[in-house]
């Protein structure tokens, strides 16, 4: 199975959403308050011109110091910080596998906030566990049940889950 940054991101939002995404069951396309989906859309499409690709991983900022690379992700708000952090950690691990040592930076321009992200040993372990869990979730024949969480209100699947 191909775990990617997007699934890592959704894993921290809602496990059910991971399964639905993985199985190509898309959220409502005309939903007027599909904030979450649109949010992902923005970060995946808006940056197409300036993004930097490495394999199937893409970042929007890359800085190089003497002996170290820093990759950055700009986000609108820190509402999804946990999700973004692990997404970035995942990118770092992909780079590491390719023999590139890097660290990450989450940038919230509107909040004038920056968060440093390092692939420490314990983080690496956690990431592996997350990937394993995503594997398990997606290999189920049915999605995890609806569990009300704080993201449901703005989720594109809301009507699908609650109707």
């Amino acid at each position, binding site marked *: 199975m191909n775990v990617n940054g997007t699934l890592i991101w959704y894993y921290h939002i809602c496990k059910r959403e991971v399964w639905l995404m993985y*199985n190509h*069951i*898309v959220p409502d396309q*005309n939903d007027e308050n599909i904030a979450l989906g649109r949010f992902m859309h923005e970060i995946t499409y808006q940056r197409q011109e300036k993004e930097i690709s490495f394999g199937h991983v893409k970042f929007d900022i890359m800085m190089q110091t003497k002996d170290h690379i820093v990759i950055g992700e700009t986000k609108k708000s820190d509402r999804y910080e946990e999700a973004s952090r692990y997404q970035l950690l995942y990118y770092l691990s992909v780079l590491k596998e390719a023999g590139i040592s890097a660290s990450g930076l989450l940038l919230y321009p509107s909040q004038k906030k920056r968060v440093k992200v390092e692939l420490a040993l314990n983080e690496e372990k956690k990431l592996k566990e997350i990937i394993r869990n995503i594997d398990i979730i997606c290999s189920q024949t049915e999605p995890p*049940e609806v569990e009300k969480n704080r993201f449901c209100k703005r989720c594109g699947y*809301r*009507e*699908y889950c*609650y*109707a």
Partner: protein
Amino acid sequence: MKKDIFIFKDGELKRKDNTILFLGEEQQKYLPIEQVDAIWVFGEVTLNKRFLEIISTKEICIHFFNHYGYYLGTYYPREHLNSGLVILKQVNLYSQDSMRMPVAKEIIKTAVKNILIVLKYYRSRSKLVSSGIETIESMATQIEKCQDINELMAYEGNIRGVYYQNFNDIIDNDNFQFIKRSKRPPLDGINALISFGNSLMYTSVLSEIYKTHLDPRIGILHATNGRKFSLNLDIAEVFKPIVVDRIIFNLINRKVITEKDFKKQTHGTMLTEKGKKKFLKEYTDKMMSTIKHPRLNQYVTYKRLIRLELYKIQRHIVEGDNYKGFVARW
């Protein structure tokens, strides 16, 4: 909000730059493509491949009706929402009676509940429909015992027969008498109205199915015969009483539609263009009217309710949790 477009005039539907243009004999009209949900064509309209191309990229369904108002077919652009998993599970449900029957029964039970809601409303307005209600209520208890789809459909047919008999008690106009359901051709005004209204409902449901992962060719009640759409016929059962039939009663009792809105032809009775337009006006108003959805806790249009019903069906198919049909509250 995107709009449904109904075309009665004769003319040409064209692609013009990146939008669509209707070129009628007297008027030309741009239809901003981003705002179009689906198109219903009643007039004599020509169109070409360039036009179909833009319609396909914008994922718009076009429903065609012939001169008499019969449904001809739908241009259903290639499936845009693809989930192999959903299709596999949908086929699986269709092909296994043990999975299919409970959903089929729930659809019929919901349709019958909505029929009863309509009748009870008219009973509260002093219409003589009590015995019909009793008969249907007792027939409804038998649905659970049905063993297969054919038996279920036969039951549904009988219930509908009783229901149609009540039409005469509800309708205040002696010029409209319902004798029996006749489809091709409709033999009287009521039949013409039912046929027209039902085909609108079938196409509305089809347009909504397009926005889900469900395959409209694979029905639950109606057999899949590879060529026709059938899932839309199934789900329409739930909404016909509370949308189409209510419109018919309203239009006749309020004398919005009169005998003048029909033309008799050698092969039956048809709505005139004016009659169709009156019906459509009422139909779109109804579909755009809102009700408070009990579980979502927000106002939704009837059109949206159809989509929600399809989401429930899709969820049932994918996750096996119980489908509960939408029952109107009054």
